[in-house]
């Protein structure tokens, strides 16, 4: 290891950073004697970059050379940027030394495609195999499965990686063809089903023999770029909902498009990445995964795009005032979850606590319920001022989206009005 590695690390990290996935959750593995590290089921973030994204794994490319020329990708072959390749031993040493200092949870290995998908995939598999078997590394490994790689290689990767992922990138095939003519959706969905198969087979095997090997125990994930093409939120969320139908699909990530190749006029000219839209998509994703919402309740033909001003749960509640008000002391858990201003944590606290007696508005507030929102949608012991029915959905919307003025500005305004009135 010497100073030369510094430059390589910089180049290959810069190339890998646009992949948003960083989760290190889903596998629990104790330390084995003579091995390094373990894996905690809940995942650990070790640092946060200045853009507020978590650093959990050493997210790195084996190489950033690539034979493809995808319009949205920084590493496309027509870009003139510094290129580098790690050797397996460099990568292994870097991972282990970072791990020993508690900088990282493990490795997230990805790569540009060199020669052909199988050749690239083989090199990736060799690197993680080395890490696991020769160096007895027990931490977390997330590996990108290369689109178009053979089933055999995907199967071998699953034996060493905790999570495998293939990125959809562009939600509809037609737009994918436009931006990446050399790729198609089949090359993405095929490895996904290989992974799915491997996970299910290994589960079945392990039911019979406890010693049967685990296959990608943390399942798979994928990513879609938002805002590079003209898909509606409906198209994006329906794609995610279909992906979540597979039991091995743990996460779909949404990546607000960052114009890395601004010279390419197939791409929209954006001043800023669509961060609000990305945030709303994640909120919708959470509604599907943790709040028992179905995708057609969040977006449909009448509302194909998410409301940027208010969150999707509030938006649903305002479209369905007939469901409210909900009685906090009687309603089912699943209905309490649907009240704007109440999250999973506070819903659980409410259901547990109401066995001891009636819950009051002030107790709700202390439990962490956002009363500013929730007050229009609930009844509890006391009578509240007015519900969404008396106030009308339009009024509630207006109150909740009003821009808050900071205190100093408020005072300024009052003083101005004192002077000029």
């Amino acid at each position, binding site marked *: *290891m*010497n*100073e030369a*590695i*510094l430059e390589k*690390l*910089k180049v290959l*990290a*810069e190339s890998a*950073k*646009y992949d948003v996935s960083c989760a290190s959750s889903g596998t629990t593995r*104790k*330390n084995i*004697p*003579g*091995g*390094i*590290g*373990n894996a*905690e089921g809940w995942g*650990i*973030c*070790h*640092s*946060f*970059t*200045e*853009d*507020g*994204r*978590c*650093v959990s794994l*050493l*997210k790195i490319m084996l190489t950033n050379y690539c034979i493809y020329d995808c319009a949205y990708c920084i590493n496309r072959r027509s870009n003139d940027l510094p290129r580098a390749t790690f050797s397996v031993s460099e990568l292994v040493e*870097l991972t282990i*030394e*970072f791990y*020993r*200092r*508690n*900088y990282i949870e493990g490795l997230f290995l990805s790569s540009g495609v060199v020669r052909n998908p199988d050749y690239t995939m083989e090199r990736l598999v060799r690197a993680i195999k080395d890490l696991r078997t020769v160096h007895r590394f027990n931490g977390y490994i997330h590996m990108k499965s290369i689109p178009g790689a053979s089933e055999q290689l995907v199967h071998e990767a699953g034996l060493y990686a905790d999570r495998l992922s293939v990125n959809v990138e562009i939600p509809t095939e037609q737009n994918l063809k436009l931006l990446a003519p050399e790729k198609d959706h089949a090359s993405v969905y095929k490895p996904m089903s290989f992974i799915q198969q491997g996970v299910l087979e290994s589960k079945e095997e392990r039911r019979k023999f406890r010693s049967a090997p685990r296959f990608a125990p943390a399942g798979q994930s994928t990513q879609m770029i938002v805002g590079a093409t003209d898909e509606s939120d409906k198209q994006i969320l329906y794609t995610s909902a279909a992906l979540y139908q597979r039991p091995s699909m743990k996460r779909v990530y949404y990546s*607000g498009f*960052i114009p890395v190749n601004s010279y390419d006029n197939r791409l929209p000219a954006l001043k*800023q*990445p669509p*961060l609000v839209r990305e945030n709303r998509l994640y909120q919708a994703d959470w509604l599907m995964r943790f709040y028992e919402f179905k995708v057609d309740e969040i977006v449909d033909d009448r509302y194909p795009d998410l409301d940027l001003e208010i969150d999707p749960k509030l938006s649903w509640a305002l479209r369905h005032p007939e469901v409210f008000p909900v009685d906090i002391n009687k309603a089912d858990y699943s209905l309490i979850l649907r009240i704007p201003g109440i999250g999973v944590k506070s819903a659980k*606290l409410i259901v*547990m*606590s*109401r*066995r*001891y*007696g009636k*819950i*009051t508005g002030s*107790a709700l507030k*202390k*439990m962490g319920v956002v009363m500013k929102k929730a007050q229009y949608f609930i009844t509890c012991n006391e009578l509240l001022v007015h519900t969404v029915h008396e106030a009308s959905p339009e009024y509630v919307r207006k109150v909740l989206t009003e821009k808050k003025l900071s205190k100093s500005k408020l005072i300024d305004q009052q003083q101005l009005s004192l002077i000029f009135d």
Partner: protein
Amino acid sequence: MIVFRYDKTFEGLLTAVFDAYFRKTFPERLLGADDIEPMFADENFAVITQPDKAARVWKSLEKKLSPGACNMLTYVWLSEEEGSDELLFQYIRKTVDSKRSIETNFADEVVLKVHKLAMKVSKERLRMIQFVRFQKAADDIFFAPIAPDHNCLPLVIDHFKDRFADQKWILYDTKRDYGFYYDLKTVTEMTLETSALFPEGKLDETLMAEDEKLFQQLWKTYFKSMTIKERINPKLHRQLLPKRYWKYLTEKQ
């Protein structure tokens, strides 16, 4: 007003509970031996810590509370926040007086306060697991200084013992001036003779292992390259990575 004085240990607190029930008088304030007497103290009782009394109280708590709730009490104690002992006393009293466990009644103020304080400590425990940074010393010991708000190092020993089983390490609380040393077999509590080994949170360069500086530099480079400039968000950054830990974070030094 009834005042109990005790030695500010957890065992002492449990003994105070025992004595209160034995005497059938319950203190409004719990003070240490040297704390200033409040103005209207009618009665002043000195608790003498006795392990067997404390054990009896703890045993009866274990019978009534779930293991999770018992853990919560330990967490609240380690919070070292002012008045946390009085809060614990109230919680234990409620538990003893009630026929069934009160632990999930979050509409009760004391229960909710204990829950929240325990969550706060648990959150910092997690931050220790996230943000502790080891520096390799010349004698192959990995050294990590840190200064947590709450006394939560004892809560992360098991995690690091399992994870870094094949390397010697020291976790050191510079605020409370004590730490834990793992020698590849067992973990022992220790206090350093001098704290001059790590000025500004960094190990003195003469004590560092040969390649330590390079890896620190590599990590800093990596951390910097991961930032996407178009998405910079300093407020979120500080919220997730509080400034008070920066001193000991290699990438922020």
